[in-house]
């Protein structure tokens, strides 16, 4: 890494501004499939890597955006801590910046929170080539607008992330996975019944006829929960959850379009045809289907959710359309951060 990789990135942004060049902010390039088609000259954040500060007793880690997610996870694991939102990496080269910009969270999300819930502060470059810091490294901070969280899931359209501070959590003392043989409807009902009880559940997944449930906590707590739940214990389940998060589970070997459908968790079985994998107590449904986007979205609108064309399908139409006034706010914010529109143009919505 060069002496001042942040300055290099700032200079690159300024040059792009001067020459009216669009930039495609690129980390490990593991998630280029996600969103509308990437356009522009690659701006490699991987030159800007390394952990800046990590103090286990503060529950905070600050790292440069180009740091490998795997390196961060390893460092945390050594101190028995973790990124509790379990970001999918989709490849060994995945960077922290990419994970935050995509805003995707894994199986533990409904129980502990999403990426945005753990972001405490960022240093970033806006579309004027300015070096800015928002938030900080403390747990609570309401000075100024919450720009840090706004960056999460913005797909790099508002700026280049330089450094990111995240809250981390201790890894559970113990985990245990149970499996139940049940159909889709019954699995939804079960997950919802359990969610209403104070049980130490930390992940659920239903696919085919099997419902997997992970418990996390103290030994006594887990033993007590097992008694309540029944089911069979699964050995070596870490691999199962990891494969699920990384989409290496057989379900994800598909030819059809893969839809990521986010709905209120208690929503009954969706009225759309195609194989469906359920996570998050019912809140996240992965659907394999080639029926037209319009018809899927109409159905999902009716249950108060939204549908993302996660892989495959029409690359123009990836994200659920926004209410007109909300789209206007998006465009206004884009102008506020990136007036020349040079960062990842159109990656999220046309004009954003």
């Amino acid at each position: 890494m060069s002496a001042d990789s942040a300055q290099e990135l700032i200079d690159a942004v300024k040059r792009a501004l001067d020459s009216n060049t669009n930039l495609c902010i690129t980390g490990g390039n593991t998630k280029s499939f996600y969103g509308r088609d990437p356009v522009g000259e690659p701006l490699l954040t991987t030159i800007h890597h390394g952990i800046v500060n990590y103090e286990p007793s503060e529950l905070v880690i600050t790292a440069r955006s180009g740091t490998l997610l795997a390196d961060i996870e390893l460092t945390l694991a050594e101190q028995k801590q973790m990124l509790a939102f379990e970001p999918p990496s989709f490849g060994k080269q995945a960077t922290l910046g990419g994970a935050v910009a995509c805003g995707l969270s894994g199986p533990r999300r409904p129980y502990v929170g999403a990426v945005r819930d753990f972001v405490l502060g960022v240093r970033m470059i806006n579309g004027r080539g300015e070096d800015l810091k928002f938030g900080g490294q403390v747990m609570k901070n309401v000075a100024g607008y919450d720009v840090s969280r706004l960056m999460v899931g913005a797909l790099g359209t508002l700026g280049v992330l330089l450094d990111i501070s995240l809250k981390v959590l201790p890894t559970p003392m113990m985990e245990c996975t149970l499996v139940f043989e049940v159909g889709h409807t019954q699995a939804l009902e079960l997950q919802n019944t359990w969610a209403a009880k104070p049980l130490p559940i930390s992940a659920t997944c239903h696919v085919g006829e099997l419902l997997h449930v992970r418990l996390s906590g103290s030994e006594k707590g887990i033993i007590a929960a097992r008694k309540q739940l029944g089911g069979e214990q699964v050995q070596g389940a870490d691999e199962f959850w990891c494969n699920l998060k990384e989409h290496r589970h057989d379900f994800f070997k598909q030819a059809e379009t893969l839809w990521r459908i986010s709905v209120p968790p208690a929503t009954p079985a969706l009225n759309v045809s195609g194989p469906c994998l359920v996570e998050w107590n019912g809140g996240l449904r992965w659907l394999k289907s080639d029926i037209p986007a319009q018809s899927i979205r109409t159905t999902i609108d009716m249950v108060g959710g939204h549908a993302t064309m996660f892989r495959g399908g029409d690359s123009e139409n990836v994200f659920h359309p926004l209410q007109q006034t909300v789209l206007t706010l998006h465009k206004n914010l884009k102008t506020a951060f990136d007036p020349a529109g040079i960062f990842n143009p159109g990656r999220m919505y046309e004009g954003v």
Partner: protein
Amino acid sequence: MSIAPKAENPSLQSQRARVASDLRRVVATDSVLDEEESLRPYECDGLSAYRRLPLVVVLPDTVDQVQQVVRYCHDNDIPIVARGAGTGLSGGALPIEDGVVLSLAKFNKVISVDKDNRTAVVQPGVRNLAISETVSHLGLYYAPDPSSQIACTIGGNVAENAGGLHCLKYGLTVHNVLEIKIVTIEGDLVTIGSNALDSPGYDLLALMTGSEGLLGIIVEVTVKLLTKPDCAKVIMASFDDIEKAGNAVANIITAGIIPGGLEMMDNAAIRVTEDFVHAGYDVEAAAILLCELDGTPEEVDDEIERVKLVLEQSGYTQMQVAKDDNQRQLFWSGRKSAFPAVGRISPDYYCMDGTIPRKTLGSVMSKVDELSRQYDLRVVNVFHAGDGNLHPLILYDGNVEGELERTEELGGAILDLCIEVGGTITGEHGVGMEKIDHMCIQFDTLELSQFHAVKQAFDTKRLLNPDKAVPTLHRCAEFGAMHVHKGQLKFPDIERF
């Protein structure tokens, strides 16, 4: 920098009459207040040192009326200050002389409760505690519990991103709200967030949360409800040294335990609250920690044992586990009544809200103590220790010439200190009017300009709660000059951190 009431100019009075009569075409006659007597209760929020009468107060009771009021103000360039219960501690709801106060007090209904998805849709004027009370029979509750929860509104909580005693484990308002409806300054009704766990596009919900009424009027909130834990127990431990207590906090967390609540009080706070509620606190201790663990009975028993061990290793002088729920409530009652308890021993107090990295707790405390002696003002400390969020309460008497000014200076010095150790000027009370000058220290010109650009994206005419939360660059330039100036003139011998 307090704002004293002053005589109004006649043109304001005619403007008042005109605006009141225009607004009476939108809402019922008695929902527009324009007499001095009826405006008086709105002249300040919980930070009573700052007072100003608004032009008029309007109390709509339908969303449609809110839209009409806002459109009227937008068309006529009239500033709007939204107001919930007015318990804010940073002057966020302080009126603007030529502006309208839009009170959401009449929006006090829980609209619906979704038992299966564990959510509730409520109007913005619903009190924080009323939500938990409404859903209690279902075994559910709304987690963020600011000490003001009997009075403050959920709209105000969203606008301030309020926290509470249990936010170390259960999060702040931003972690517990799913969807809001806002009225934009153009009068459009916009839905932000969703009933699912995430929503498409930018995270506007996070941006709106804590935006202090500068980006839109919140007219509906969908909150997440949690299942009440089966069991909760609290440990109280005393320390003969505040630094040791600070280290104990770090040790608990390093041991991999995230308590439901982890609060600290210093000796001054222990004494005032013990006098007030007789909670059985150790009045000789330099500091006490209250550590609450909740979950299933098995988990709680496990964690209690682990925490006891950590506290022992951290050198406590006394330790006690509340023997039943009554005693648990009693232990908390002291901490929860810290503000009123202080109110009994001092005519006025000023509550600070800086947040610092936990590891600096000990050193910051001793510097606060030093400052308190330098400024000759008593300081009582309560904190959300688990989050590093300090609430030094500076005791003063507003009737004593110069004491308020000295209090503000001491407060400023404490905020400078928080920034210096890598913290922030406000953890949960917001910037409002009170900390606006300190924003100039925490952020540089470019960052402040970016904030103004965000404001511009929502409110081009800058009519929503203008001149709060984010200082103009002009103001910062002036403040920069004044900061030094004051230091030289008033307290030349006081060391600055």
